[in-house]
């Protein structure tokens, strides 16, 4: 165990020494990885901000339940009872048909037309706020209310929620596609870097194998190199996006102030940043593993 730890410490030290020995090449490599990761990351952060904004500022969608015209007072009470007990209903409001008509008169400016009607064409109704505002949750509620007795029509103003959902989903897809492509870039960059290292260290690897070095022993420093490259690239990406947001917020601050509002883009959360770095390190490790496995095999006797 102690021996194993020492070998790993030694590999890590060797890796850092290799990085330090060619500082320019290392920095450029880290830069490539960092920029490749920064693009999808920036998009992701903007998307997260958009989503947060939508949740903060948008009005909550409501469900309107219209009752049949021949409804009795007891039916209305029954429905009210059901709404009171329903777990998914946050709050509801009863709108009697007379009040609805009065509202319509006041708001629409159609009082003449309405006055010419012989009778009130509007039904009694309930306006309901749901606890959950996801589009499919609201649709489930609509279908449930529709089946209740004396309910004539249920209207859901979820169109905006659907549109937002679709837009965000499109955004997520773009992030995913970008992310996948650039993750591939990261793997390719480490693969090639490690291949070059193996070529320049041919003599050393050959001698080490002749003397009795196992493949894991030879591979280990390369794997560490890949992981460190990925990690450093991840941190670089984070810094790039952080700096970009900081610049943007600076401008945005003075702009929104002119409108008498205050608004700032949120930075990447710490857990998100940590998982980004871990993910990048894992990808670097994978690229190095792929490269080392392919390029070290030729040293074995056939």
């Amino acid at each position, binding site marked *: 165990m102690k*021996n194993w730890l*020492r070998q790993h410490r030694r590999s890590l030290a060797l890796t850092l020494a290799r990085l330090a020995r060619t500082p320019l090449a290392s920095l450029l490599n880290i830069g490539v990885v960092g920029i490749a990761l920064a693009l999808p990351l920036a998009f992701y952060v903007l998307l997260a901000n958009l989503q947060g904004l939508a949740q903060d500022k948008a009005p909550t969608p409501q469900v309107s339940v219209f009752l049949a015209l021949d409804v009795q007072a007891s039916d209305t009470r029954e429905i009210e009872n059901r709404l009171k007990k329903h777990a998914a209903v946050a709050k509801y409001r009863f709108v009697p048909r007379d009040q609805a008509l009065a509202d319509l008169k006041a708001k629409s400016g159609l009082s003449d037309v309405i006055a010419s009607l012989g009778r009130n064409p509007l039904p009694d109704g309930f306006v309901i706020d749901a606890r959950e505002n996801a589009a499919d949750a609201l649709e489930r509620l609509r279908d449930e209310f529709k089946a209740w007795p004396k309910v004539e029509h249920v209207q859901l103003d979820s169109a905006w929620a659907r549109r937002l959902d679709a837009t965000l989903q499109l955004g997520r897809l773009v992030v995913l596609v970008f992310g996948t492509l650039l993750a591939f870039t990261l793997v390719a960059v480490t693969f090639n870097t490690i291949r070059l290292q193996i070529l320049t260290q041919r*003599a*050393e690897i050959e001698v080490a194998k*002749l003397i*009795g070095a*196992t493949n894991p*022993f030879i591979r280990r420093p390369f794997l560490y190199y890949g992981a460190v490259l990925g990690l450093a690239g991840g941190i670089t990406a984070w810094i790039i996006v952080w700096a970009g947001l900081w610049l943007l917020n600076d401008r945005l601050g003075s702009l929104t102030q002119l409108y008498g509002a205050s608004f700032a883009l949120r930075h990447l959360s710490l857990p998100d940043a940590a998982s980004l770095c871990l993910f990048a390190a894992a990808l670097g490790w994978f690229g190095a593993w792929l490269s080392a496995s392919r390029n070290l095999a030729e040293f*074995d006797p056939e």
Partner: protein
Amino acid sequence: MISFSQVSKRYAGGFDALKSVVLEIQPGEMVFITGHSGAGKSTLLKLMCAIERPTSGSVVVNGQNVGTLRASAIPFVRRNFGLMFQDSKLLYDRNVYQNVMLPLDIIGYDAADAAKRVRAALDKVGMLGKEKALPVTLSGGEQQRLAIARAIVHRPSILLADEPTANLDAAYAVELGELLRSFNQVGVTVVIATHDEQLAARLQPRRIALSQGRISA
């Protein structure tokens, strides 16, 4: 300790380097493999330490058939050997001390113990004062002594040397012969592929002569 039974080796392209070789080497022996260039000396050594696998027959070292071992087991076989190559295969970007440290690093020795062993090995070959020197600054004889130090630092039970005196002048060759003799005297099995007759005359080893891939005497 090392036994070959009906060992043949054919390289890709159809060249038969060894044909039905049978031989037995006992622990503590000193053996010279002699013969012209291309007689199969190097191939014989490479088969012993699993750098090459035999085309047919079996090569047994310390009771293990090294010709059929899995690739992952080969490194552990190699650690029984100290190897000296025709070209010394030193690492030219590392100093003398680091070159000798390499086998101990690979096996995973404790640092303090390893440092002691490296000094002991360098002392043995008379290179203790040159720990920090880079191999390019050493003479041919010194490089070969460094190669010996690296070969014996992990105290292998078998020392294999391929033409160790090939690039040395006479005085260095004598010195190297004495070193090899001293290891043999403390119980190390020494197998040397060479056509250096003077060396053979001085050390009086058992001789195995190869000719066109067969044992001729």
